[in-house]
């Protein structure tokens, strides 16, 4: 049997942080796509059947808020988790996303939030096909 987890797109300009996040999510059974900036993240979002997005807010050029707005207009049903090292983002940004969390809360919290967004209560992210 082949385990196929939901496809999660991670967008972050922090190379190491992005790499580590990918490792954590893959270990938890997710398929992970990564993008180092907003424009490449949007391209991946349009071209792939992404089921959730883990998006960093503070990025050079296009920030996470703008990326989330475009993602919402393209595929409004795809849940978005917004990550930021800053605290207290404006409401017009946090209203665009499903969950807003600060970096440093830890992997378990991220995994728990993704699970809550993607699966019905109690289901395993690793789907069997």
């Amino acid at each position, binding site marked *: 049997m082949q385990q196929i987890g939901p496809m999660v797109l991670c967008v972050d300009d*922090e190379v*190491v942080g992005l790499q*580590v996040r990918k*490792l954590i999510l893959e270990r938890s059974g997710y398929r992970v796509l990564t993008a180092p900036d907003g424009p490449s993240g949007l391209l991946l979002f349009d071209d792939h059947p992404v089921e959730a997005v883990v998006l960093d807010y503070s990025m050079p050029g296009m920030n996470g808020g703008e990326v989330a707005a475009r993602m919402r207009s393209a595929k409004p049903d795809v849940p978005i988790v917004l990550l930021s*090292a*800053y605290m207290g983002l404006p409401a017009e940004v946090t209203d665009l996303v499903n969950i807003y969390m600060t970096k440093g809360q830890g992997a378990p919290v991220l995994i728990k939030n993704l699970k809550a967004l993607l699966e019905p209560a109690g289901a395993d992210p690793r789907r069997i096909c």
Partner: protein
Amino acid sequence: MNLKQFNRILLRALLLPVLSLAVVAGVLLLQVLHARRTVTAIQVSDDIIAATTEAQTLLVDEETGLRGYQITADPAFLQPYEEALPSFARLTASLHANLMAQRESTRTLDGIDAGEQTWTASYAQPLIAQIGAGGNANDPALNMSGKEQMDGLRVRVRQLLQRETELRVAEVRRWHKEVQHTVEALLLLALLAGIVISVTTVRSLKRVSGAYQKTLDEQREAQAALVATEKLATAGRLAANIAHEMHNPLDSVVNLLYLLRDERDPVLANEYVDLAQAELTRMGEVSRAMLGLYNDSVLPDPVGVSEVLRQPTAAAFGPPVPPSRSPVGTRRNA
């Protein structure tokens, strides 16, 4: 101070000198009008004096003409008398009018007029008739009567002349006094107006200056508050940026520790440790960069120990060490 108050001060500053000048002009105008009346009165007095002097001359002409006829019995000598008679009548009429205009008494003039008519009727005409009829021209009683009447006329004319001259002198004296009073009043008015204008202007200027200074002070305070707020905001932004730069590698280290806990593969575990090490080094660099912004004079700076030992106070620290073996130490700045 608002615009309305400022405009009111400006209006007052404009109106005050204008009103003061208007008052001074009014006083001058009154004086000029009064002076005109006085000058007119003096001119009429001059006319009266001139007419009275001419009346004297006409009386002389009348008497001279009569005397000449009395002496020569030649009608040609009567010419001055005959010319003077109607002129005298016109003159007394004109004098009468001038005296009435000056509101002066005409009693003396009426006496002169009546006296002249009496002299003419009771002496001159009878004498002329008598001489013309070839009668005696040297009647002593008649001559004496004629002389007395003429003397009386001359006295009255002199009285009129003297009185009018005195009136004229008094009028001129009064005019001089009025001019002097007017000049004094104008000087006083000008001084008062100057003082009032100066005091009012100084007060207004002080008010405006005070308001301007207050506005400047308020602006300066607002500026200082703005600068202080901006500094605080800048400090806040800097602190947020520093926290952000520290938070990202910290998040990676936390996640790597999470991965390490359950990682059985030593190769992968080492990779995670290397990554964590790199992130911690990055945090250290950020921290050092931030510390480098703060210039603290008590921070140690490196010096050679042999250099320190060569200083006079080195004896307090023990024997010198050979240069080749002296480590680089640190000396605290004072």
